[in-house]
């Protein structure tokens, strides 16, 4: 197990280094001189430009720029936002809890809908229930999140007036209001997760139900509920747990447009606003942070996989 863990860490570190190079390289795609953008109205003043270039080390070779950037990033310093003059790291940490709340709610919705539906459709394979669930999942995968969001605002806010169309209230301030402002975006994101989890649970259940131990359990005369719930489901859930962790990572980062539509001040809104304002250090910081979260979560997924699958523990 320790060998596996070490090997896995040995993969994570080069991946992180390459991500950081990619994120740094993004800057080179930019048309035009960053110093000119930063200088704004003072762009005519060569002294200001020279000062900015020296500050950002734009006058030095690329390799040295990168080393300087990564050195500071390792110390938690991702640079300053060009627009609001705040440290990028601070901005990210400030937005993270909001997105985390939204992601957790979406994840719960996704699991509560997706896993049971996957089990049902595997147990009733090729029956109307299976077709219905598969059809709904296909709809879920094919509907763009942001459109579903707009349609929900149209129905629940404009037509029925049940929920506020946008905005965000922290759960520490007013838990009920917080729920009202986040339930629609959480549902929008949750449907996507539910569709993916449903498809995987169904496949894993079908695999488990065709195994010998399930046949043995049935031959012993155990009730179908115990066979499905205890024997098949427990084994089928192993890959689903791993996938769920990765889906959670995707939620943390994938809420970009949904947050934008519901004006939820989280991660996604941060990156979108940064894109609109050409606030490049923030875009870079968010990309780096999402990749880091994603890599950590896949590491956790692997550990969970080992923890719940005893066959791998000794390996």
């Amino acid at each position, binding site marked *: 197990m320790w060998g596996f863990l070490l090997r896995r860490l040995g993969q994570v570190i080069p991946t992180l280094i390459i991500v950081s190079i990619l994120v740094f390289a993004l800057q080179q795609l*930019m048309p035009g001189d960053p110093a000119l953008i930063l200088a704004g109205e003072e762009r005519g003043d060569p002294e200001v430009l020279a000062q900015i270039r020296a500050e950002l080390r734009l006058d030095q070779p690329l390799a040295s720029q990168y080393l300087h950037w990564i050195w500071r990033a390792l110390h938690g310093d991702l640079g300053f936002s060009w627009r609001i003059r705040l440290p990028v790291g601070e901005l990210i940490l400030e937005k993270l809890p909001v997105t985390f709340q939204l992601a957790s709610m979406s994840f719960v919705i996704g699991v509560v809908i997706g896993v049971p539906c996957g089990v049902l459709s595997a147990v009733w394979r090729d029956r109307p229930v299976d077709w219905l669930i598969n059809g709904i999942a296909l709809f879920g995968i*094919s509907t763009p999140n942001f459109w579903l969001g707009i349609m929900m605002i149209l129905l629940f806010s404009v037509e029925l007036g049940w929920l506020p169309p946008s905005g965000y209230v922290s759960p520490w301030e007013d838990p009920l209001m917080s729920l009202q402002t986040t339930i629609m975006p959480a549902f929008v994101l949750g449907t996507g997760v539910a569709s993916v989890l449903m498809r995987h649970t169904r496949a894993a259940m079908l695999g488990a139900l065709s195994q010998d131990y399930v046949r043995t359990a049935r031959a012993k005369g155990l009730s179908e509920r115990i066979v499905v719930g205890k024997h098949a489901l427990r084994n089928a859930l192993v890959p689903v747990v791993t996938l769920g962790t990765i889906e959670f*990572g*995707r939620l943390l980062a994938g809420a970009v447009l949904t947050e934008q539509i519901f004006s939820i001040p989280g991660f996604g809104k941060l*990156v979108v606003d940064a894109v*609109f304002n050409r606030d*490049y250090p923030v875009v870079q910081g968010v990309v780096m942070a999402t990749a880091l979260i994603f890599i950590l979560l896949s590491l956790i997924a692997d550990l969970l996989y080992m923890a719940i699958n005893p066959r791998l523990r000794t390996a």
Partner: protein
Amino acid sequence: MSTTAAKTTGSLAIETGESPGRRALRRFLEHKLAMFGLVVVVIFIAAALLAPWIAPFDPLETSWTRIRKPPSLTHLFGTDENGRDVLSRVLFGARASLTAGVIAVGGAVLIGVPVGLLAGLGGKWLDIVISRIADAMLSIPFLILAIALAAFLGPALENAMIAIAVSASPIFVRLARGMALEARSTDWVEAARALGNPIWRIGVMHVLPNIVPPLLVQATLAIAEAIIAEASLSFLGLGQQPPQPSWGSMLNSAQRFIEGAPWLAIFPGLAIFLVVLAFNLVGDGLRDALDPRSQRR
């Protein structure tokens, strides 16, 4: 006697000896949902190609006398905040979405497959380097990577396509690498290598034909994702630039008028949903048809 025997074995050979390609085609044609998806895709392609002839109005023509009019017989999908005909804009918007979807995925395949083959056949170190880069790219969520690339490249439909193509390429790197590694352990590739064939020749002659079926499935599903990505980038103002119509940017401006003019949001979104659903159905159908192990017809 001998002639009848020959005939029976002959007809048997025809029945069981159906070539894999023909069998896949037959299974695909028998797949009702996939056929439905294919018909929808063809309708959308036709709409995009014929837009100048079938659109009832000029998609860019504004009019102050018909601002935000609800759907009617003259304007089946209503008019937008500048008095433009929404149906015409949806028809022309199909051009941006479909071209972006197909070209971006084409680009991703053209980048991903050769690089993946190189990783699978080029030796240990090349494999390690390429795989790590693909892993790194895959660890950045697809849409975030596409948004970041498009943001740094600057807002334009071409840049959005490049951004989507680059973001989608690591999936194809993985696919091609996996197939190349699998093929490498087979006897026929061993033999080809023993005969002194260079690796590019092994890649093209021996691995590529085996990749085509899974590649086709993956590419079709990727087009669905790329269309959503293009709509998302256009929604953020990073794709098709106004006043040129695209479904994503139409949805963006529709959001401001959701209370008074919901049709502005309904129709472009419905178009995205239908075309994405259709590509997903075709992709699922292709997978069922091409996978010899799948039991479902």
